[in-house]
Structures are given as C-alpha cells and as structure tokens.
C-alpha cells in the first residue's frame, strides 16, 4: 500500500441490527471485490468480542496484533494489518482481542480508523450485532453505511432501528443490501418482496443477494466467493455491489420478477386476470 492517497477514503459501516443476516459475509466479499477492482481496501472487524471476519477471509492463523496494540503503540500499523495473500490490495485489521472486552471506546475507533484511512481507498467496518455499545463504537468513525437485511420481519424491524440511529448520527448515505432473497417464495408472495422491504425502510437499494448454497461452501473454505471469480449468483451480486459503490450504474433486477419460465409466466397471467394468489 502506498502512503499517499489522492481522495479521502470511503469509510463504510456494514451493519444490520440483527445478528446472522450476513454482515460479515458481505464485508469479506465486498472487501475482496473492491480490492480486485484496484481499490486499496481495509476491512476492520469491529466485533472484537465475537470476531469472525478473519475466519471468513481465511486469515485466522495470521493475526498477531490488533488495533489495540497499534493504539497502545506496542506495534506499528503495518504490523497489525494482515494482508490477504491472494489479494494484496486487501488487509484485515481486527479491532481487538476476544479476551479483552473493555478497552474500545468511540474515540479509540475514530483514532484507528483515521490512521487506516490514510493508506486506503475503502475502509469497511464490520459492525457487531445489536444497537448498544458495540454498535456505537463501530459507528463512531463511519461516514456512510450499508444496512444489510433479509426479507424477514425480525431482520427488517431491527434494520429499521439501526437506520434510525444512523440518521440521528448524520451518517450518509445509508444504502440497503437485501440478502437471502428467495425468488420463488417472493413470486408467490410467501416472503416479503423486494419492494415491500425498500418501501418500509425507505433506503436506496445497492444490492440484492439471492440465497446461495455456495456461500456456505466458501465460508467453510475461508475463501470468499468473490475471490475465485466463480459465477455463482451470490458472487455476482457481491461484485455488483462493489461496482455500484464505485459509482457504476448497474441495474438491479428483482429476481422474483425476472423469472421467464413458462410456468412463471402462466402464474403471472393467472395472478393478473383473477387477482388470486
């Protein structure tokens, strides 16, 4: 990484409120995707109590220092940044050690992010679940945010709380990623639709990720889907999010409406003419 930056880094908080909706998976995949597009990217695991970003990136055995040691000046920032082997534009910085649960304050977060931002184009902050101190710390240094949710009532409700908090903090823009989309269920209205969620949360959509078993496989391996460029639907979705973040206009297609099979068309016709289903 070069020491000189031309534009200030984009500092993006990735949050959801509810746990288990895909924050860390998004952070890992987006980090790799941005790095592949030539952006110097640092992913910061702000969930230091239950950190997992290292595991998803396959970097769990390479962590020696954390932001904690950098702030205490027992090591240099370069030593704490864990560079990804295959994607040298990407580095991971764990905020802290799971054994030390009390040190991090919003000021600490602002200091470490400011240091990292000097040598990066993108800083992605993987936020812990919840809206308490962990969220407040993680959000302290964020300029913009991506809220990730799934089409489920609990996840959408929690996302709404988080959006409210981000708004009062003046974090902007806040964009939405809808994860674990099941086109079939959406088409038969047995799941909240894409428009339902965007209507309710009133956020611009930056990505739609369909439910994809490959995500589990990639997690098992510690190799984010965006790393190996396979054409799985989720991999494509993550890559598109990265490109949209950089300002590319890539259309978002609602997968529940994109089904062009005979059966789907027939069902649509029945739905429209009879008002049933």
């Amino acid at each position, binding site marked *: 990484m070069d020491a000189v930056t031309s534009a200030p880094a984009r500092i993006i908080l990735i949050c959801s409120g509810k746990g288990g909706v895909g924050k860390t998976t998004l952070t890992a995949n987006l980090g790799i995707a941005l790095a592949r597009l030539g952006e110097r990217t640092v992913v910061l695991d702000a969930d230091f109590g239950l950190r997992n970003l290292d595991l998803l990136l396959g970097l769990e055995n390479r962590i020696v220092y954390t932001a904690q040691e950098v702030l205490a000046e027992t090591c240099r920032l370069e030593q704490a940044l864990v560079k990804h082997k295959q994607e040298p534009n990407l580095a991971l910085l764990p905020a802290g050690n799971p054994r030390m649960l009390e040190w991090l304050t919003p000021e600490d977060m602002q200091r470490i992010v400011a240091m990292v931002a000097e040598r990066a184009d993108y800083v992605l902050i993987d936020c812990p679940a919840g809206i308490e101190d962990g969220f407040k710390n993680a959000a302290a240094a964020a300029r913009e945010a991506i809220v990730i949710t799934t089409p489920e*009532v609990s996840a959408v*409700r929690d996302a709404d709380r988080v959006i409210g908090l981000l*708004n009062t903090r003046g974090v902007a823009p806040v964009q939405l990623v809808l994860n674990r989309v099941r086109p079939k269920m959406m088409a*038969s209205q*047995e799941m*909240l639709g894409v428009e339902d969620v965007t209507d309710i949360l009133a956020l611009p959509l930056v990505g739609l990720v369909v439910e994809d078993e490959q995500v589990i496989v990639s997690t098992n391996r510690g190799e984010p889907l965006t790393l190996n460029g396979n054409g799985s639907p989720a991999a494509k979705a993550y890559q598109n999010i990265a490109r949209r973040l950089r300002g590319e206009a890539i259309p978002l297609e609602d997968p529940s409406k994109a089904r062009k099979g005979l059966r789907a068309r027939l069902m649509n016709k029945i739905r429209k003419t009879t008002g049933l289903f």
Partner: protein
Amino acid sequence: MTLFDFIQRLLGRQKPSGTMAKERLQLVLAHDRSDLNPELLEQMRREILEVVQRYVEIDIEEGDVSLETEDRVTALVANLPIKRARPLPALVAAAAAVGMAQAPDPEAPQELAVPLASEPTEDPAPADPD
C-alpha cells in the same frame, strides 16, 4: 405452500404470508418509530375524538386514529366521518370549553357533552347545563 394453504388462498380465505408480514411490520414500525405504545395511542385517540366532538358530530364507531408511515415519516392519521356540524350554541360552548381547558378541570369534557343531549355519548349522565 401446502395444498391446504393453496386452497385457502384460492378461496380468498387467507392472505399470502408475505402480505401479512408487510402489514404487521408497518404497524409495529409505526409504533417503534414514534415510541408510542398502543395504550398511549388509545388514550390519544380518545382525547382527539373528545376535542373533535365539540365541533362536529362524528361517528365514534367508524372513527379511526392510527399511525401510518411512509418514507420513514410517521403520520398520525385520523379518519373521522362527520355526521353533521354542531348547531351554533354548541360551538359557543365548545369555544368556551377551550378556554376552560387550560384550567385543570376534570369536569370540563363532561360539560361539553351537554349540548348534544340527543346524542348517545360515552358519558353515562349528562352534566347540568349550568
């Protein structure tokens, strides 16, 4: 979707669960965002109806005061079908009552109910017009 669900929907007896999810969310978020619990909302509804009743006769049964949200803005929406406007003396009494309302007088709302003697009100006994 099971066959049973399918038939239920075919007969129009059951909404799709996605639609139910949206409706339930909209309701719960309106409350979350406004920090009003259902009890407070009900109290506010009653008080609003009381005030409106001073000026016009409304259909209490049909009256609806609820929270709605659009684009993250929560609005208090009141849908109160008006039967007819109050006759003039009633309006004067209502105006006087507004003045009185500043004094902490728990009797005030009952006195208001007086001019609408023919109207079935929630007050069991209309107060004396004096």
